[in-house]
């Protein structure tokens, strides 16, 4: 039964291939429907947004380290928002807000998932393209438009949105509360609405493609872990992003139409506003109903990528494939019932707090399984230290470090005193920010040859890795101690409280690390663009990998394989299999006589 469907499927896909026609510049690079090109479009746009996001963090780190000091560079970048080189508090909050928005959504959601789901899903499951190339292109263009609007919002008169990346009302709803809640906030909401539409189109496509378009022999249990991660990520997105969409729409109604979904009993600017009956906490429930799965929408693709990279470069099967799949599913399920741990101090019913504490701490179990399985994969391996491998090992390290502090923050009783302090900033930057960005770097270094047919420079990759690894821990680890001293996040300056005066040195240290780390990213950007045009030509299978993408020709073509789609005979992790001649056996190699199928 399943065989006949896949055969029909292949036939259908082959039929698709015959339809290719002459391409010009626009159909090839701009309005393309080819999944590989769309993946690259996501990557380049994501990188561009990433540069903006990281540069913003450099600016506000400079300000935190040297509050109220004059820096001409601030005036150069911020103009009227930094008169005489001193940053305005509203601009500080705006930078923090847009940094968060860009990094979470534009870089680590669209840039990470968009790039690698698009590039790898058809190539690794053995499909000619996505289920709907048009929807895929549409998904990118919604994302592009949303990026443009987010960037435009930086230039409006009263400044961009500044109420934190979570944009809690009433602060985000009332222009009287802060200048950023005017036109900047409207653009933020429009941008995010388009972003969500794009993300939904993409996710639906990924799900349909993985479920329906796998090649013959590619059963679910033979899927590379990357695909499992992308599939579950897409499901999370489809189930949770619509909730953020409604949260954003209701906020827009409150702002533009005068409804009272989130607002009630407000006195501001010398007058009572006419809102009544709304609840700001409702917004938080809706926001975090997306917001927490979002953490895993960011993290799971990175974990999937690192599973693939670690197995390939340890020259060993990933340890505990089924447990890895199981833990992805468990994490995904739990991620939907833990959102309240962001709201322990909102005054919600204490019993609800107990439930959220329980479910939150449970997530530590599948996470621990993943971490131990990665480490066991390294054990007795024959590790090839490509830059991608280095980043993947670093991911395991940050995943462990950041995951552990989650045990503290997930505990409602302990959260009370470190809620919204730098302890939280340290926690989520390490577990989610660094792990995901390391996964993204690992993916770029690993699949660059697949994307551009050339190799990235190895030595620059090493330099980039070590500088990033050291400085990133240098930035975020000390923040735990700031949090334990009670220092709240999102403070423009810590000088208003003498009790924090002795933390100033640490803030200076962090800023040094941040600036060196930020500058180190130039090595990556240079390496990336240089290698696109000047890197050495790649071999078909440079890392000696097993999965199907390495059976396609180096030169990109519509439909991915010149002949038939390969048939899959084994899982993706037959590395160093006893009896095999080479230390890898690609998935399309039939089982030898008497060979037992792995796992």
């Amino acid at each position, binding site marked *: 039964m399943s065989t006949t469907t896949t055969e029909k499927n292949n036939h259908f896909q082959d039929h698709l291939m015959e339809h290719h026609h002459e391409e010009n510049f626009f159909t090839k690079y701009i309005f393309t429907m080819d999944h590989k090109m769309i993946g690259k479009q996501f990557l380049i746009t994501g990188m561009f947004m990433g540069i903006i996001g990281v540069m913003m963090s450099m600016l506000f780190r400079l300000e935190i380290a040297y509050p109220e000091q004059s820096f001409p*560079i601030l005036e150069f970048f911020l103009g009227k928002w930094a008169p005489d080189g001193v940053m*305005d508090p*509203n601009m500080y*909050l705006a930078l923090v807000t847009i940094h968060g928005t860009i990094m979470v959504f534009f870089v680590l959601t669209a840039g990470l998932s968009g790039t690698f789901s698009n590039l790898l899903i058809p190539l690794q499951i053995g499909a000619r393209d996505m289920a709907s190339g048009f929807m895929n292109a549409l998904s990118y263009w919604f994302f592009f438009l949303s990026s443009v609007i987010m960037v435009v919002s930086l230039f409006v008169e009263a400044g961009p949105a500044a109420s934190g990346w979570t944009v809690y009302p*009433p*602060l985000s709803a009332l222009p009287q*509360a*802060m200048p950023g809640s005017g036109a900047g906030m409207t653009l933020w909401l429009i941008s995010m609405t388009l972003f969500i539409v794009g993300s939904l189109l993409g996710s639906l496509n990924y799900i349909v493609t993985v479920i329906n378009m796998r090649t013959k022999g590619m059963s679910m249990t033979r899927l590379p872990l990357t695909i499992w991660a992308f599939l579950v990520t897409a499901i999370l997105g489809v189930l949770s992003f619509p909730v953020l969409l409604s949260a954003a729409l209701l906020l827009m109604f409150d702002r533009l139409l005068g409804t009272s979904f989130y607002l009630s*009993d407000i*006195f*501001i600017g010398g007058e009572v506003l006419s809102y009544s009956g709304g*609840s*700001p906490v409702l917004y938080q429930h809706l926001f975090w109903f997306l917001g927490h799965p979002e953490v895993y929408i960011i993290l799971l693709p990175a974990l999937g990528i690192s599973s693939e990279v670690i197995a390939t470069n340890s*020259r*060993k099967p990933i*340890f*505990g494939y*089924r447990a890895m799949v199981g833990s992805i599913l468990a994490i995904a399920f739990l991620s939907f019932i833990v959102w309240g741990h962001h709201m322990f*101090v*909102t*005054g919600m019913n204490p019993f609800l707090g107990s439930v959220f*504490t329980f479910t939150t*701490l449970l997530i530590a*179990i599948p996470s*621990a*399984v993943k971490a*131990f399985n990665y*480490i*066991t994969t*390294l*054990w007795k*391996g*024959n*590790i*090839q*230290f490509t830059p991608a491998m280095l980043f993947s*090992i670093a991911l395991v390290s940050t995943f*462990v470090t950041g995951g*552990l502090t989650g*045990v503290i923050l997930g505990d409602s009783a302990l959260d*009370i*005193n470190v*809620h*919204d*302090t730098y302890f939280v900033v340290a926690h989520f930057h390490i577990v989610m920010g660094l792990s995901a960005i390391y996964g993204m770097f690992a993916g770029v270094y690993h699949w660059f040859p697949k994307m551009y047919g050339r190799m990235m420079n*190895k*030595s620059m990759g090493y330099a980039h890795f070590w500088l990033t690894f050291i400085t990133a821990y240098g930035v975020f*680890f000390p923040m735990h101690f700031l949090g*334990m*001293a*009670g220092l*709240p996040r999102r403070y*423009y300056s810590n000088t208003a409280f003498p009790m924090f*005066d002795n933390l100033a040195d640490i803030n200076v240290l962090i800023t040094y690390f941040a600036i060196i780390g930020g500058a180190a990213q130039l090595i990556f950007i*240079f390496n990336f663009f*240089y290698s696109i045009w000047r890197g*050495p030509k790649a071999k078909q299978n440079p890392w000696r990998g097993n999965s199907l993408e390495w059976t396609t020709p180096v030169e990109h073509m519509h439909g991915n394989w010149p002949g038939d789609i390969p048939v899959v005979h084994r899982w993706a992790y037959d590395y160093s299999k006893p009896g095999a001649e080479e*230390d890898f056996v690609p998935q399309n190699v039939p089982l030898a006589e008497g060979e037992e199928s*792995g*796992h």
Partner: protein
Amino acid sequence: MSAISIIVLIVLVILTLVQVMRISEISSEIQKGKDNEVGPKDNNTQGRLMLLVGFGFVISVLVMYVAWGRLSLPEPSSAHGAEIDSLWNLSMLIINIVFFIVQPILFYFAYKYRGKKGTKATYFEHNNRLELFWTVVPALALAVLIIWGLNVWSTLMMPENEEEPILVEVYAQQFNWTVRYSGGDNELGYATVHEIAGANILGVDTQDPASADDIVAKELHLPVGKPIQFVFRAQDVIHSAYFPHFRAQMNCVPGSVTNFQFTPTITTAEIRQNKDVKAHVEEVNEIRKAKGEDIWEFNYVLLCNKICGAAHYNMQMDIIVETQDEFDAWLKEQKTVAETL
């Protein structure tokens, strides 16, 4: 001017990189492109670096604990704070044990199993026993933390009082705090944003008889050893009342009333004699002296801990914990709502 020099500098750096690339390109051509492949030599270097930097990281975490451990908040000044701190210490102990075992193993394995010529990895795809082991052990540790954590949480949120707590309202607005004491009747008069006018910044309904003896103040005085029932209100945006020294925090949400209860256990005068606090004050004052700023005397403080606008970073109020007599004397000096409005 400096903007131009920065741009020039960036351009120069990029040009240098291009030249370096050219050289490496030419040299790699001489070596027939082998240069970019990962070989045993790279595995050796990178594996050793993994060991070195990885262990360096673990050691520097130890150094940070030694150097910055003193920065943590002093002993809790509330009854429930002690319970939070013991739970905190146990959790920290557990996560640190895991950290100091797992991280070194990770980096050591990376080093130990670095690729060598002629070796082959061991084909080891799964082991149910091992996997069961590291599912069950974290589950047990978490069970302890969950059970203890939920216990502490429920005593915090649903305290049982021997005596009736003193009712105090904490009121937040951009960008300051106001407090209202409930007076002799221990009942707060009705208040609403619609009543805000002139000196009546809290919108207290003066028609409500319960409001007559309420006392509005700009400093939070608390009697030691008495349970305090706080209710929180905000008039404009969400704020968060953060009492770090008392291990207490609660959001102030416009349109609704939230609450939290704690019992202060150490007076301001006593905490100033605490040796950690003394050391902290000394350190801070040395810094302030060097910068030519006023000398700081330790006070408990209430901070805003939810982003609320431009001056969020400076929304504070002093808290004074004192003996019952001192508290009564202070309260007597304050004017009631009936006298001021």
